[in-house]
């Protein structure tokens, strides 16, 4: 069997249903096999970065490993941003790249790039397969590494001659990697310590992140919070880990978190971090973060413990298994005084709500989108920027894997290709993309892909003719010197139609509802809505970088 056939056989064995990719000279042998493999759908994107983001969106929304493919050289380097995005957010994807033939490696051959060297710091692991006999076990290991422990992207680089050479297909046995044995079960003593700390705490607070979602720990999180009456704040990556409409949810914390979530962090006496990594966008000035709290830190990655803050009770392991144990070991309790304090925070501040006559306010647009689209079968995808923060603040997510957004890397252009992956992986669900006029143009070519595959994605663009988040910083922190942030955009409706999608525009508040409804009725193709919103709205609250969470800009 040829190497290319071995690869596809192994992908089938791993249960791969779809590959997002783009052909080229160094993967042509693999594509020749794909030609006769009806079991695996191939989604042809228009730029390899789109393939990586689509595989990422597929993985985030389904919980399966996403697969993307690209040719050598420029094809492979175009994957890099997508790999870094997945790496920062711990998303399991396997990227298969073609490589020039082994005799040509290292000679600056045509379309050669050292992709394993390039992706070393932005992948969980990578492989250069130099012998066809190794291919089967490498594919096995790649999927195993990507999906276990702390998930992440893995690259398999396959030289052209390895794809062409033949070997016997020997199905690898159980994967055994001597240096890779993730810890899942939390240390019993540490769990007992955590349980007694929770029992003793007067102002406990759960701080939950994306790890809860990737572990599938949400049911136990809910049980724990309810049993011990603990308020919950989530990171942006943790949206959906805990139902946001639940009485115990305080919403998102951090730079653009809710006033009361940040206040709760600053006043709690026990912070229980679950699958979260104390990112600088979350903590603000790190030495003033949660100043009165003992910290329990639950994470599957030992390297996260003590990286940014010192944990009093570290527990390494799988969030689901640890929370399940923890729930068993705590007594039901209530924290009425703590809640009274939190209600005080809640009533002390209301987000500024200033209607501007004749202007469409972006958070109002998102609120309306939320009203019209939220529900069991909706998955919200965002790009990166102001619209992302407004969406994070306004669009409540009740379930894991219903909020898809680039967190750690903050990749503008992520949204559209990710939506494609989400829709392909969830054909029956409604996929809503909230984007901005900056982000959408970073990957606008993928609108072709969405049209080609008849994907009914609803695209709402918060169009303020600015690179809004940078403009906001320039306004707040750089004396209003709007350097290079004004965007001159083409007409988005015409553009959508030229691509074969449906296009709408809305400028007035009274038109908002009917236009959204029209867009939602579009079937069999994407609908793009150009929401021409007020130009200079800011995302508030805003904790300026390097400031304490107490120092929120509120107006």
């Amino acid at each position: 069997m040829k190497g290319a056939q071995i690869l596809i056989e192994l992908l089938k064995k791993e249960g791969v249903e779809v590959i997002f990719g783009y052909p080229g000279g160094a993967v042509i042998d693999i594509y020749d096999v794909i030609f006769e493999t009806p079991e695996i759908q191939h989604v042809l994107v228009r730029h390899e970065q789109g393939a990586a983001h689509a595989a990422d969106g597929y993985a985030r929304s389904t919980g399966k490993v996403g697969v993307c493919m690209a040719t050598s050289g420029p094809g492979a380097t175009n994957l890099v941003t997508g790999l870094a995005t997945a790496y920062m957010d711990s998303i399991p994807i396997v990227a298969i790249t073609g490589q020039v033939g082994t005799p040509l490696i290292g000679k600056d051959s045509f379309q050669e790039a050292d992709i394993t060297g390039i992706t070393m710091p932005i992948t969980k692991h990578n492989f250069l397969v130099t012998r066809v006999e190794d291919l089967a076990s490498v594919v096995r290991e790649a999927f195993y590494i990507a999906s276990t422990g702390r998930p992440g992207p893995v690259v398999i680089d396959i030289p052209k001659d390895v794809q062409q050479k033949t070997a016997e297909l020997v199905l690898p046995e159980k994967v055994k990697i001597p240096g890779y044995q993730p810890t899942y079960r939390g240390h019993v003593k540490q769990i007992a310590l955590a349980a007694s700390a929770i029992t003793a705490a007067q102002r406990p607070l759960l701080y939950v992140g994306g790890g809860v979602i990737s572990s599938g720990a949400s049911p136990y999180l809910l049980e724990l919070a309810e049993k011990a009456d603990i308020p919950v704040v989530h990171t942006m990556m943790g949206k959906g880990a805990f139902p946001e409409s639940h009485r115990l949810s305080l919403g998102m914390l951090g730079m653009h978190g809710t006033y009361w979530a940040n206040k709760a962090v600053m006043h709690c006496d026990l912070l229980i971090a679950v699958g979260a990594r104390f990112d600088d966008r979350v903590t603000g000035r790190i030495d003033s973060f949660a100043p009165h709290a003992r910290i329990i830190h639950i994470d599957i990655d030992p390297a996260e413990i003590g990286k940014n803050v010192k944990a009093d009770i570290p527990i390494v392991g799988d969030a689901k298994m640890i929370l399940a144990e923890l729930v068993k070991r705590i007594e039901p309790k209530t924290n009425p005084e703590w809640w009274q304090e939190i209600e005080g925070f809640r009533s002390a501040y209301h987000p500024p709500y200033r209607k501007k006559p004749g202007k469409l306010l972006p958070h109002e647009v998102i609120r309306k989108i939320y009203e019209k689209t939220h529900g069991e079968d909706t998955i919200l995808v965002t790009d990166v920027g102001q619209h992302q923060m407004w969406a994070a603040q306004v669009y409540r997510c009740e379930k894991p894997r219903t909020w898809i957004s680039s967190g750690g890397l903050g990749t503008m252009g992520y949204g559209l290709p990710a939506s494609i992956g989400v829709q392909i992986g969830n054909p029956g669900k409604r996929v809503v993309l909230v984007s901005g006029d900056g982000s959408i143009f970073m990957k606008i070519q993928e609108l072709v892909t969405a049209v080609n595959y008849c994907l009914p994605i609803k695209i709402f663009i918060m169009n303020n003719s600015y690179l809004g988040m940078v403009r906001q910083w320039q306004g707040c922190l750089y004396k209003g010197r709007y350097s290079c942030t004004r965007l001159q955009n083409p007409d988005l409706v015409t553009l959508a139609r030229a691509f074969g999608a449906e296009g709408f525009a809305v400028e007035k508040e009274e038109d908002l509802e009917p236009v959204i409804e029209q867009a939602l009725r579009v079937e069999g193709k994407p609908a793009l809505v150009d929401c021409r919103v007020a130009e200079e709205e800011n995302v508030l609250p805003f904790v300026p970088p390097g400031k304490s969470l107490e120092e929120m800009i509120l107006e």
Partner: protein
Amino acid sequence: MQHIISVLVENKPRVLARVASLFARRGYNIESLAVGPTQDPKISRITLVVNGNEDILEQITKQLYKLIEVIKVGDFTNTSYVDRELALIKVNAASAVRGEVAQIVEIFRARIVDVEEKSLTVEVTGTPDKIDALEQLLRKYGIIEMTRTGRIALARGSKSL
């Protein structure tokens, strides 16, 4: 504080690059580095000497463990160990001073491994301090070139990493 870290890794291509780039990315300077095979042909041993406080070292150790091909990491600080380094020093040694140089080499229990009309090459093994001291003494004759292997170390007694 100086730490000697021993890392057992799978003997595969690029493993050294992964380890080295991990240090580089976090801005930790490597003082010395030595790599070689072990009794198991599938496993290599990397010995690193780095400077840093406990927190930094803990982070480095954890990050090393995140590398898939890293099997075991050990820090020799606060343990009982033997460490050695080897150096080759090529020094000017015209006939007038040759006896003097040979005497110094003798005192250090070093060995002359190559002789030529005007120069000698000295092989010396020991702790870095000993090598530093010899280098210092030979300096006045004029060192033409020298190379050091970087430190290697093993725990004392029967225990192993």
